């Protein structure tokens, strides 16, 4: 397959084509099956986290090292020139990008990665999350986990559950799966945390099937993928939260008539929306999904920094 990702900035899921997504998923599968510790040999990669993120940073840095590269960077902006001396992000990026082959970054402000791509002098920027906007590598590892467990990204019944209003993960995953054939979405959330209209309008104009629900049990038996997310307690008053908690919690009992191939995914950390008895069922896949973050990020780095391999 032609490597369309070579030297490309990875900022936002809507910019990636179906072919791009398939190439990443396929490459992640190959690197999981057969590690290749030479793809980033002699390359230094920046991993700059202007706000903390344990899983994303550690899996990116693991990915770099497994491919033979080395990492420079920081895990929070507290001790950098930006915070200490008031340097702009544009200046920081310009300088750090001159040291490295690729620049992985997370930043609390929306649009930070796009801005960085304009100051990096063509050094590829990889967005590890920009505020509430995009977190493309989460979506890539989600797609890889779905492909790995279902053998396809077409013809899937997928439920997205929890905070569908504010959760950037579910927005990006919906936009990505909408690029595949015959996806059937079930959006399950309290009314005040429903999927935003702009996403539903995108699905409408693309002629993609979706339905809205307010409980898990009425649809669970029809699903191939059940994607849980955390509902943040601070968005509710106490009585609302108690009601919501009871309705949007997944327990092992609820999966008794589920399809054999059903897999439960979650971007983690979970709090109490998936009870621990689900962990022992054949449907639980969230810990493997977290592990897949390393392979998806390896695939992305390998493709961005090697035209062929």
């Amino acid at each position, binding site marked *: 397959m032609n490597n369309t990702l070579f030297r490309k900035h990875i900022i*936002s899921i809507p910019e990636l084509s179906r072919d791009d997504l398939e190439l990443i998923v396929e490459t992640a599968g190959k690197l999981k099956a057969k590690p290749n510790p030479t793809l980033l040999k002699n390359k230094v990669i920046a991993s700059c986290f202007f706000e903390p993120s344990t899983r994303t940073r550690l899996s990116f840095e693991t990915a770099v090292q497994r491919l033979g590269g080395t990492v420079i960077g920081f895990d929070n902006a507290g001790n950098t020139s930006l915070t200490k001396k008031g340097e*702009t*992000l*544009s200046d920081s990026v310009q300088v750090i990008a001159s040291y490295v082959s690729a620049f992985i970054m997370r*930043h*609390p*402000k*929306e*649009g*930070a990665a*796009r*801005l960085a791509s*304009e100051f990096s002098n063509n050094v590829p920027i990889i967005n590890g999350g*920009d*505020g*509430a*906007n*995009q977190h493309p590598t989460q979506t890539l590892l989600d797609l890889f986990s779905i492909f790995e467990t279902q053998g396809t990204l077409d013809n899937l019944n997928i439920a997205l559950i929890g905070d569908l209003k504010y959760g950037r993960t579910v927005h990006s995953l919906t936009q990505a799966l909408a690029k595949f054939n015959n996806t059937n979405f079930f959006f399950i959330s309290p009314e005040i945390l429903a999927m935003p209209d*702009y996403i539903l309008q995108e699905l409408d104009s693309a002629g993609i099937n979706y339905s809205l629900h307010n409980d898990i049990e009425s649809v669970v038996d029809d699903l191939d993928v059940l994607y849980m997310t955390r509902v943040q307690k601070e968005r509710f008053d106490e009585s609302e939260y108690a009601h919501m908690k009871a309705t949007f919690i997944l327990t092992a009992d609820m999966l008794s008539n589920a399809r054999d191939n059903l897999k439960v995914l979650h971007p983690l950390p979970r709090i109490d929306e998936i009870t621990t008895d689900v962990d022992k069922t054949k449907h639980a896949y969230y810990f493997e999904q977290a592990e897949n973050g390393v392979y998806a990020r390896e695939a992305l780095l390998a493709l961005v920094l090697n035209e062929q391999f």
Partner: protein
Amino acid sequence: MTNKHKLQVEAINNGTVIDHIPANLGIKILKLFNLASNKQRVTIGLNLPSSALGHKDLIKIENVFINEHQANQLALYAPHATVNKIEEYVVSGKLKISLPEKITAIFACPNSNCITHNEPVDSSFTVISKDSNLQLKCKYCEKSFSRKIMTECN
């Protein structure tokens, strides 16, 4: 010339007249588009009677000719404004305003957490539909805003 037919705002020899600006937006447009920044004479009429709008604002800028691209940037605020080029006291050209595909370096992003507020870059918005559901999408934070929100925040 009798008082009845006297111009409401003094005529200019050469320059640009922006007419049919909705009342109360004249000052805002003057400021937002930096129309008074080049030391040329600017005259402004506010709350002038208008048969089409009831009341309107009007701006005349001496010795400055604005091009179609610049005129189109006005479209979000004043879609029905007319932009006339004046030479030797005569209208020598009219620009029809239409919404551009991009609006750059005019509006601040209404999203207070957008990176553009802290960095040395121009704001940039893509106009994503040209019907009544017009939305402007920020190139950086990727959020979309209605005309109402955009004009209220700027």
